[in-house]
């Protein structure tokens, strides 16, 4: 019977192919959308998890989260480090990490932040060491792969966050000191350095005043002579490890003091990422910040939920299309079955003269339908996965986020089960005429 069902199907390849194709399309579309949605929300969740709140310049809170946590949008602007740190002294705050950027290398963002940022994402070194001095960077695994950067390589950054910036800071090359292990988070696609690097690059650019320029040139000369950067830098380092943020406020060597303090007040960061002892703290503090300061506080979890809400409409639309195609596919299989039963009435009657009973005939029709829907479902699932894979290649190039191949999820199995279940009533409907099949008449009406 199974063999006959199979033979019947392949003897009418056009009908079979059409039904399978429709089914295949709808199932691949449905599983594709499901997968994208799942993986996107998983991906987002993983990346926003370390932080409860972002403090940045006023503007769209979604933009702030996208830029400072997910590193995909432009920042809203800069805020003063001093002011942000004041907020951070609140006892509800567990950790806070300043981040700053403004530069890129071939479109990859260069992020200035203390080492704690890496610990938050549980990033560890693949090789090399962490950045210690300004202009030392560690790079994410994705960056290392894409641009083939290795330890010891140097590069110059260009201004802004977009690729092909005409303005390059060619005076100050960055040096790669470490490469991070893949983490599956935004870190993989970042170049990370300390805050000072970002400040120095931009001071250089902003300050045309002679006094400041001279100061930096002095610094450079010192470096070229092979001397250590002096006691100010050492001082920095020691403190950086223990008190990530506090040291920014501390006094430094006599000579630099006045000068440094001046900078201290002006020093800007893009945003401050905050983790609370208790997530409720985020709610209280964000209201305070939004009402009483020139900064804004955004809660990544809310913003991402909002974002998924927007995308949800699109996903639902695609789901709708998939379901429509599925219905058409179901209808096509149904019509095909009815056609099969009608066209092959004589063959079915012949089988009855051979001794097959009605239920065997229905079984035959059912097997054919089952074969179609199984083939369509399985191929559709594979096509869905292949599209995910192709899409993954695309996202990896565009955004550096690759998607993961996964085995069928429960939801997908449910879809396939539903498709197969719906063939059952189709078979029964199509088989109704078999109960009334007049073998004698069918055989003699040649």
């Amino acid at each position: 019977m199974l063999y006959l069902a199979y033979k019947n199907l392949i003897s009418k390849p056009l009908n079979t192919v059409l039904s399978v194709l429709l089914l295949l399309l709808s199932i691949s579309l449905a599983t594709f959308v499901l997968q994208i949605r799942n993986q996107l929300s998983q991906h987002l969740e993983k990346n926003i998890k370390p932080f409860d709140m972002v403090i940045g310049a006023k503007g769209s809170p979604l933009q702030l989260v996208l830029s400072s946590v997910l590193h995909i949008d432009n920042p809203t602007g800069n805020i003063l480090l001093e002011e942000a740190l004041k907020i951070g002294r609140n006892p509800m705050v567990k950790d806070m990490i300043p981040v700053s950027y403004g530069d890129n290398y071939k479109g990859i963002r260069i992020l200035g932040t203390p080492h704690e940022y890496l610990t938050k994402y549980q990033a560890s070194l693949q090789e090399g060491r962490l950045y210690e001095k300004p202009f030392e960077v560690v790079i994410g695994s994705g960056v290392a792969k894409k641009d083939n950067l290795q330890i010891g390589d140097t590069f110059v950054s260009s201004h802004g966050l977009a690729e092909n910036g005409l303005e390059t800071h060619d005076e100050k090359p960055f040096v790669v000191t470490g490469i991070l292990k893949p983490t599956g988070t935004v870190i993989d696609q970042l170049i990370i350095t300390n805050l000072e690097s970002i400040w120095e690059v931009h001071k250089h650019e902003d300050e045309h005043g002679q006094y400041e320029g001279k100061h930096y040139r002095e610094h450079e000369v010192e470096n070229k002579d092979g001397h250590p950067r002096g006691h100010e830098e050492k001082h920095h380092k020691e403190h950086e490890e223990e008190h990530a943020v506090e040291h920014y406020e501390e006094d430094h060597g006599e000579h630099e003091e006045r000068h440094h303090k001046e900078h201290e007040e002006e020093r800007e960061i893009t945003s401050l990422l905050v983790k609370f002892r208790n997530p409720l703290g985020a709610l209280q503090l964000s209201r305070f910040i939004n009402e009483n300061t020139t900064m804004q506080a955004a809660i990544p979890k809310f913003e991402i939920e909002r974002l998924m809400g927007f995308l949800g409409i699109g996903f639902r639309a695609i789901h709708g299309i998939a379901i429509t195609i599925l219905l058409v596919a179901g209808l096509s299989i149904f019509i095909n079955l009815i056609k099969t039963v009608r066209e092959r009435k004589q063959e079915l009657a012949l089988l009855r003269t051979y001794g097959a009973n009605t239920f065997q005939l229905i079984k035959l029709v059912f097997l054919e339908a089952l074969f179609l829907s199984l083939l369509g479902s399985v191929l559709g699932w594979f096509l869905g996965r292949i599209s995910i894979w192709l899409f993954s290649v695309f996202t990896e190039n565009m955004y550096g986020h690759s998607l993961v191949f996964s085995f069928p999820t429960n939801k997908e199995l449910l879809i396939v089960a539903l498709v197969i279940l719906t063939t059952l009533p189709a078979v029964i409907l199509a088989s109704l005429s078999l109960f009334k099949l007049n073998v004698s008449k069918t055989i003699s009406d040649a």
Partner: protein
Amino acid sequence: MIQTTSLRFTYQNSKNHVFCFPDIDLPPNEDLLILGPSGVGKTTLLHLLAGLLPPNEGDVFIANTYLNKLTRKQLDNFRGQNIGLIFQRAYFIRSLSLLENLTLRERLSKKKSDRYRREELIMQLGLSDFQNKRVYQLSEGQQQRLSIALGVIHRPKVILADEPTSNLDDTNCEKVIFLLKKEAQICKSNLVIITHDQRVKAHFDNHLIL
């Protein structure tokens, strides 16, 4: 063994026309030729014998089985095992090859698969070179021979042939009659042929004229 008594049959769409058939009493191993012009109900009688139509009146006994008493499913089963039907126009499962058609028929009869029997039959009918061909690739003569094979492969107790020769030329007609007789002998079955073909008449002694 075939036995019928006072068989009557009426088609639903022609209530006024009632087919009344003479009683048949055919002992085992004997052949019967049913003759008559078109429209007298030859095929109807054959289908009554095959259990494809239920009689309105009268009884049908085939191989000691009272067909009237069987359920639809039992009838299908009985037909599969004991009756071999050969039609005027050859019917096959188009998606299967010659050999596959034969195997299918054999399996549906629920009898043991007999490879030797299949091969011998195919050889006797001169179809050895075509056994893996699709049935619609065969010539008309070959198709008719295949339909005989399909009618006898499972060694039925009764072979019922409906105008097996009407589309054939003289040579093929002779061949078909010879084959049918021979197979009926081998299977020890009753051979019932309905026909209006005069060429067949001479080959059989037992005639029933409707």
